[in-house]
């Protein structure tokens, strides 16, 4: 069943009307095909208009939508011959970040990404996509493996942030994130990151300091959640919509600021309405970026990546 967001209410009402009419039609009372067609076209137009002008807070809701495609969907649809790799060789296996060897459209790569899970059991297993130090240390391990064996790195970024907890602090959450960022910037292989949902602060950047950073049209990427920013600067989380707007966290904003390199368009009404089309578009964009990067030497790739981030903020 489709989960509707608050701002999608008018669309939801139309869909409900269509469903009712279909039921009536099924009872064979009257022929209402024309009426159904008219309403469906109206719903499409409404959806298109709504999604064309989403504000930053609405996009945050879309980016967090429970039906949005996650890492697993990208692996299933894009990767052949996927070999999952686990563990940080130090403490444990953190399922908030998954990774492994994958073949994308004939090209062998290392694929790493946050996984939020999509039902209660899997959300708990993946800790809602919020990684602990061992998750970032696993990412470092896999990134270094990729670099050593000349495999391009592709990351799928979708997290509210690194997990804030006592044990995570004890095991050095800050150090793990810092080391992961440092590793991103030292790799001598092509590196493409795609922010597919929430790009939540350091926990996202830890696997996103890439040669090319792509972003889905309605994804968001920010230094802190709008709720967090609002509760600090406005002293109430109720001002999250204002904070979202002020922080400039949409794909268009970030492209303008030079923080991301390419926006991948989403299907009508957002990625959650059409997984196949979304995943295909992301796959094609990754392929195009890797084609361009694979002509460069390892040294060039690392130096260009470093130079790009060294300039950030002027």
């Amino acid at each position: 069943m489709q989960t509707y967001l608050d701002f999608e209410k008018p669309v939801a009402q139309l869909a409900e009307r269509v469903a009712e009419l279909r039921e009536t039609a099924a009872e064979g009372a009257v022929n209402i095909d024309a009426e159904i067609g008219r309403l469906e076209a109206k719903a499409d137009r409404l959806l298109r208009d709504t999604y064309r002008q989403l504000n930053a807070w609405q996009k945050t809701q879309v980016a967090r939508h429970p039906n949005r495609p996650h890492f697993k969907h990208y692996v299933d649809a894009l990767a052949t011959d996927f070999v999952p790799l686990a563990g940080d060789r130090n403490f444990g296996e953190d399922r908030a970040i998954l990774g492994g060897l994958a073949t994308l459209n004939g090209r062998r790569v290392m694929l790493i990404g946050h996984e939020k899970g999509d039902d209660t059991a899997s959300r708990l297993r993946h800790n809602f996509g919020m990684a602990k130090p061992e998750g970032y240390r696993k990412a470092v391990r896999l990134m270094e493996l990729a670099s050593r064996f000349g495999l391009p790195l592709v990351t799928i970024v979708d997290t509210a942030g690194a997990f804030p907890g006592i044990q995570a602090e004890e095991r050095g959450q800050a150090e793990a994130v810092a080391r992961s960022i440092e590793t991103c910037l030292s790799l001598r292989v092509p590196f493409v990151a795609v922010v597919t949902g929430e790009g939540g602060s350091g926990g996202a950047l830890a696997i996103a300091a890439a040669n090319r950073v792509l972003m889905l049209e309605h994804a968001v990427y920010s230094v802190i959640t709008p709720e967090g920013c609002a509760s600090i600067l406005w002293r109430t989380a109720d001002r999250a919509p204002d904070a979202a707007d002020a922080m400039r966290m949409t794909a268009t904003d970030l492209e303008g600021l030079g923080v991301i390199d390419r926006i991948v368009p989403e299907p009508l009404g957002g990625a959650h309405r059409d997984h196949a089309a979304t995943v295909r578009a992301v796959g094609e964009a990754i392929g195009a970026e890797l084609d361009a990067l694979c002509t460069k030497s390892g040294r060039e790739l690392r130096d260009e990546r470093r130079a790009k981030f060294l300039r950030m903020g002027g």
Partner: protein
Amino acid sequence: MSWLDRVRNSIPFIAKRETAENLWHKCGKCGSMVFVKEWEDNLNVCPRCDHHDRIGPRRRFAQLFDSGRYQLMAEPIVAEDPLRFRDTKRYTDRLKAARAATRERDAFQNARGCIGGREAVVGVQSFAFMGGSMGAAVGAAFVVGAREALQHRCPYVVVTAAGGARMQEGILSLMQMARTAVAVSQLKDAGLPFLVILSDPTTGGVTASYAMLGDVHLAEPGALIGFAGQRVIEQTIREKLPEGFQRAEYLLEHGMVDAVVHRKDLAGTLAQLIAYLSPREREAA
């Protein structure tokens, strides 16, 4: 000052009213009234309870460099208020107020001088300036300090202090984590030591970037050091935090810092480290 004043000043509760406010410092931890001169001579550490007070760049430079002599480096100019950010106040107004209050341009300053007779560049973050938060100016200053160390082939020492990212610069403040990490990598590639002194408080994006990428990490006693804020953790896990959580001694216990060093021993410890790790020393040996 007469001996009578001296006696009177050493008895906090009597002297307070009779002496100019700026002659006394009230300890933020134990509440003792300490004569400012005595407190400053003690490196802004409470002589009663050893509480290490927060200090800004100038005072820190004076304490760390040989004979308190150093050359202040110019602060880089960056685009101000790139997002035209406004919450309950304009970001530009917050910057103006912070500059007026601290007489600093932003929250990070560099200086060059000698420590234990050997050249070093020292960068100090200023908590007094908007909570030491890291925006483009802090990131750019860090890069400038690292570059100076590269040019002089000497160590880069950084004293951290920050509540986290400069939210008013949005994603650009986040990008400073990657930017400063690049500067650290360049020092490492050049074989130059990057030494970190964690002072109270160091949290958020600063901890999760250059503060945890040092060749050696020293921390001041009692300093709060962590990734997530304590309130955020309490709200997430819904339990009380253990005693001493995220304090320097706790980090030492968990393997995140090499030593907790009293402020009076900091310059000496740095001199020792620099003597061992300085590239010229290695070449000569």
